């Protein structure tokens, strides 16, 4: 799999992006009361960023032309 070094590097970049998304200090930005479209901000952020990350992972590994 991960045929090309480029794909590996893209995935590694997404790893770093995920580490950034899922940790302090980004979390502290959303860790407060109130709501975004009826959802608690932290929950909304984690679910959306998580799904986005999964989407990006899929995009990188399923890409046909490299």
């Amino acid at each position, binding site marked *: *799999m*991960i045929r090309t070094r480029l*794909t*590996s590097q893209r*995935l*590694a970049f*997404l*790893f770093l992006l*995920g*580490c950034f998304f*899922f*940790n*302090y200090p980004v*979390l*502290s930005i959303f*860790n*407060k*009361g109130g*709501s975004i*479209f*009826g*959802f*608690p*901000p*932290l*929950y909304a952020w*984690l*679910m959306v960023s*998580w*799904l986005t*990350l*999964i*989407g990006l*992972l*899929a995009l990188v*590994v*399923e890409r046909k032309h490299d």
Partner: protein
Amino acid sequence: MLQGWVVVLASFLYLGVLFAIAWYADRRADLGRSLIANPAVYALSLGVYCTTWTFYGSVGRAAASGIGFLPIYLGPTLLFALAGFILFKMIRVAKVNRITSIADFVASRYGKSQLLGGLVTVIAVVGVIPYIALQLKAVSNSFSILSSYPEIIMPAAAGAVPILQDSALYVAMILAAFTILFGTRHLDATERHEGMVAAIAVESLVKLGAFLAVGVFVVWGLHDGVADIFARAAAMPDVARRLASADTPAAYGTWGTLIFLSMFASLLLPRQFQIAVVENVDESHLRRAVWMFPLYLFLINIFVLPVALAGLLHFKAGGVDADTFVLTLPMAHQQEALALFVFIGGLSAATGMVIVETIALSTMVCNDLVMPLLLRMPWLGLAAKADLSGLLLEIRRWAIAIILGLGYLYFRVAGEAYALVSIGLISFAAVAQFAPVVIGGLFWKGGTRDGALAGLAAGFVLWAYTLLLPSFAKSGWLPDGFIAHGLFGVELLRPQHLFGLTGLDEITHCLVWSLLANLGFYIGISIQRVPNVREARQATLFVGGNEAAGHSGWSASAGVADLLPLASRFLGRERAEEAFLRHARQRGLNSVKELPADTRLVNFAENLLTGAIGSASARAMVASVVSEEPLGIDEVMNILDEASQVRAYSRELEQKSRELTRATAELRDANERLRELDRMKDDFISTVTHELRTPLTSIRAFSEMLHEDPKTDLEQRTKFLGIIVSETVRLSRLINQILDLAKLESGRAEWTVTAIDVDEVIHEAADSLTVLFAEKRVTLDLAGLQTGLTVMADRDRLMQVMVNLLSNALKFVPTDSGRVRVGADGTANEVRVSVSDNGPGIAAADQELIFDKFRQGSGGTDVLTDKPQGTGLGLPISRQIIEYFNGRLWVESSPGAGARFLFTLPRQAGDNGKNS
């Protein structure tokens, strides 16, 4: 209608269906049409990561701490983003080296060490037991809750129920039986279980379906969507705090720790390693799993927080364990079918985990713990036993039963003190101890067996002290004094505040110390020495990730006759023969018997056995039949240096080059000699020319004078003509001698060999020179001549030699007082003739030179005329003649004491001539 028997029946039906799926998948695999050779199945089977911890425990965790359940799933997502670097490499390495478990992986990496494999096994078993207890607890609790329907009654504390009435015991027994049926029906050399993987994939679908069903029911059946639940929760102050996380550094620290921990757990838990690495059919499946597996985790977690909040809202009065909300919410709303589905979903989560985990552990226990020990006990005679495959299966079955038994024991002892998630985290922290040696082993070549042993042991001890023992103490099984006051009352040794470290939760605290010690010892001990040959070879295989296995380190070989029976003992005869036949076919041979006894065959056999009994044991077993010679330094060099072939070529080249150099030197010498000869020839010609010109010039001068002045008086004319005549004589003598010499040198001279009287020849020569001697008034003394000496030689030539020597002596002796003495004597073999004079003598340096052409002694020129008195060819010619007859001609002299020329000639006719 949800009586106990209904639940039990449904459970068995479900397990039966799973078994059928597994059986069908195994059959398909045997037919070569694999059911699981599909990336989606691979991704789903990875869902074994989600156990009852996820299914029941996440909601409980969310009810307690809101979003805090989530890091356990974010970690694996991040890990799979790194799949290209870590997982992919592990799969490669495992395939090439036939790795069958995480213990095998570590043991193999550090030089196939049995001790290391054993240690990893012990850590894995001890570490994972709480996790298995967690499954037992969840299944038995959900069973007792469901069977008390329609009431919702929390089960009694684990320890309070008599053992025989404890449903957890029966759950453990049933799971053990089921796992044994699943995993140990036959022995597979590759340790792959296609049927199991297929069943696990189905279970992943079932538990996901069940959880989503509950989610949909709670969110849309009981409420008006997720936002509605959040709005209600926000309205209740003590529920609302779960909507956000604690905003403290410690909370963020714990969060990060859990992400980190789960990252490694999703890779290093024995069951994860089994599914992700060992059961991987095709490397390319990993590609899709990179996003599918995280997506699965996302889906199974999407309703966790809403369900938890709904549970808190619904069971305001308390009394219901949040770990059971998934089940109790449908029950409270009389959703019998849904409740049963949820129970089955939970059972899926538990059985999936238990089956894969215990199969993986039993393989490790058998291959890396029990077999190495048994094989080391010679009195058991195992090494000689014909068929061990039955024994292997037996060991594994017992291992499965014992592991589940230990799980049950832990459940009885410590199960009540913790929520599901907290129990699971203890196991996560245990397997995290593998991270340094596994990840380090994949990327760092310097790790050694000693380092790995020390690191693992240190990490394991600290884990047990800071996490496992306190869990026993908290449940009252151990005195809890040491938690509060430290071991032996030493405050610094308080297990959960080791060395005074406070402010961390117990998991982070444990990880900080255990991983610190682990890494420290691993690296610190490893760098005490360079890896030995075996470690270095394995390091190259693992770090280089080379497909080419290269040298296996076997320096000896064994034949089919030894290896086939060995393999048969562990695999069974049929399987072994089948594998050997396949190997033979691969090598283009028709039958097993044709396989040559080479290292390739030994490697194949070792690989085959590795699948069945682990790399360390396999090595030991193969070593028992292969009389391996210890690796010599040359072989080590060969292994380390792939360029050995090239070196051999270069040695050959060097030798050739040396030969060429030598040939060149010879040619140069030959050329030098030729040049020397050429120069000598030039010298000779110029000398000859000079010698010829001198008499010619005087002949020409005197002839011209006579020709131009006819009035020259008679006296003058006579004098001139006399000079001309003597010069002409000299000239013709010179030419004769040159021709003579040329003839002698080229071997074309004519010889007439007869018996000669030496005395007579000497007298004759002396007579011919009498006039010259008289002119110079030189005494010629012939008194020393013996008579009757005969030799076989050419008379004229011998005469020539004597005349040469006598006239030579005459030339150098002083006028008037000159004296030349000739002597001749003989022995039985030869005749010796000497010519002595009282001339100036010859310096030692010139004594050989005078025998060269045109070289004359320093006294050889007439002092007055500066004219050489001889041709300079007499002595060389004489020497040629004497040597022709196998004699010797030399001179004895010292300056001022005269010279003595001597020659010897052999008497025997046969000895001379012809052969020169």
